[in-house]
């Protein structure tokens, strides 16, 4: 059963996905449009459009092409302000039943992207994993740092007329298979702080879920998949704390897991462990 109140932003149209990269390189627009259709039918709430480092014109054309085959709203996915502008200008909200697009993403390192709101209203994804400090970008390493960045970003959004319940905070998920420095702790702590702050009531949260399970083998010894249960286990923990969007795959069939599911037990254990013990616990999960 799909997870109630969880919106999937279909991730397939992304130049960094090797199979999609081939479509882009071959300029196979029909192939790309088919990805949009498959995700629409598969239950995606939004269709992500990430064309990598191509031109704004190309992104605009992709927006039009994708909208020609789906009435789902889009997530315009580029950190480049000029490309974002081109994508937003091309977006037809009437075609999407009046729904505004998502803009993925704004961070403190590129606040000028808020100005684009005047061109086309959007739901911004606010990246909280990095902050601007003394004129330089810094990675956030603690839950408090992520939470404080999220708070500053939501306040900045408000100054541009974007209400809190239109903002999507991305507290940034990191691969659990390389987590030797407490990133999963940091993530869950940040989600908890964001969820618990009354000033942020109504805010949305999202992560790029497939990033959680990269770097581990796809199957467990019994042949069962290893990745999607870990992703579902994360959602089982995070959805009750306000995680209501994910950039992910409609094929993965995310679901809420029972507490005794091996992936649930693994993540529960990870939260009690530190340093290398976390990845060793993950290793135990996929080798047993």
């Amino acid at each position: 059963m799909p997870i109630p109140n969880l919106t999937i932003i279909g991730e397939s149209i992304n130049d960094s996905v090797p199979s999609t990269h081939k479509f882009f390189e071959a300029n196979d627009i029909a192939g790309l449009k088919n990805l949009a259709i498959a995700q629409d039918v598969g239950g995606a709430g939004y269709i992500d459009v990430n064309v990598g480092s191509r031109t704004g014109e190309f992104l605009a054309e992709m927006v039009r092409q994708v909208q020609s085959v789906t009435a789902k709203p889009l997530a315009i996915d580029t950190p480049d302000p000029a490309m974002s502008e081109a994508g937003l200008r091309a977006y037809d909200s009437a075609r999407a039943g009046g729904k505004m697009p998502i803009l993925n993403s704004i961070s403190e390192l590129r606040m000028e992207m808020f100005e684009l709101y005047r061109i086309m209203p959007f739901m911004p994804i606010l990246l909280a994993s990095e902050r601007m400090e003394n004129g330089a970008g810094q990675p956030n390493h603690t839950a408090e740092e992520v939470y404080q960045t999220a708070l500053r970003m939501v306040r900045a959004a408000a100054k541009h007329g974007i209400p809190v319940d239109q903002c999507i905070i991305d507290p940034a998920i990191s691969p659990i298979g390389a987590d030797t420095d407490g990133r999963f702790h940091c993530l869950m702590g940040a989600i908890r702080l964001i969820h618990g702050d009354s000033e942020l009531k109504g805010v949305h949260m999202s992560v790029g879920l497939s990033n959680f399970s990269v770097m581990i083998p796809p199957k467990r010894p019994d042949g069962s998949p290893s990745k999607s249960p870990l992703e579902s286990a994360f959602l089982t923990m995070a959805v009750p704390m306000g995680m209501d969007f994910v950039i992910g795959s409609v094929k993965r069939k995310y679901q809420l897991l029972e507490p005794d599911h091996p992936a649930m037990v693994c993540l529960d254990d990870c939260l009690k462990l530190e340093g290398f013990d976390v990845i060793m616990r993950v290793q135990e999960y996929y080798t047993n």
Partner: protein
Amino acid sequence: MSTLSELAIAVEAGKRNDAKALTLGLLDDGMQPLDIVEQGLVPGMSAIGEKFKNNEVFVPEMLIAARAMKECMGILEPLLAQAGIKPKYTAVIGTVQGDLHDIGKNLVAMMLKGANFGIVDLGTNVPPEKFVAAIKEHDAHLVCLSALLTTTMPAMKSTVQAVREAGLTSVKIMVGGAPVTQDYSDEIGADGYSPDAASAVDLATKLADSI
């Protein structure tokens, strides 16, 4: 008596306590620290690197093996320093300006360390001038640049330019990271590209030997 091949196997399997005990055992037997590095740790890391390249093991196994190697190095390094033995080659490594991804860069650094390169790790978001300063300060043979974002690939290019413009003609420049390709490496005038951490060692050795 512990043997070098046992040590290599313990490193490859990431058994850090066994690896440390074996290292101490070999020292007790009178083995030279450099021999332990070159004939125990290096083959262990190279074996795991090879398996990683062939998708037989994954990032967690690499990290766990590298930790075992590092802890053995922690025992051996002071002895090597006392004996005045320095790694043959020194590499400066970092993720380019604007880019905060470091998992791949760290794996490359670990594999190079595991192949007995001296490593100066500048971390992430490293501006070109910092690379240049570190190359000069450490008299580096190699500089390794990592980028994971298409938006920071231009910073890779400007770093290559800065190194060339600083007149550091003998240092070899290696580039890598998921979006980087051999074509891009050629285009920006780097000396070499490799797709993964294990082949990065082969490339680094080839480039450093060619100086």
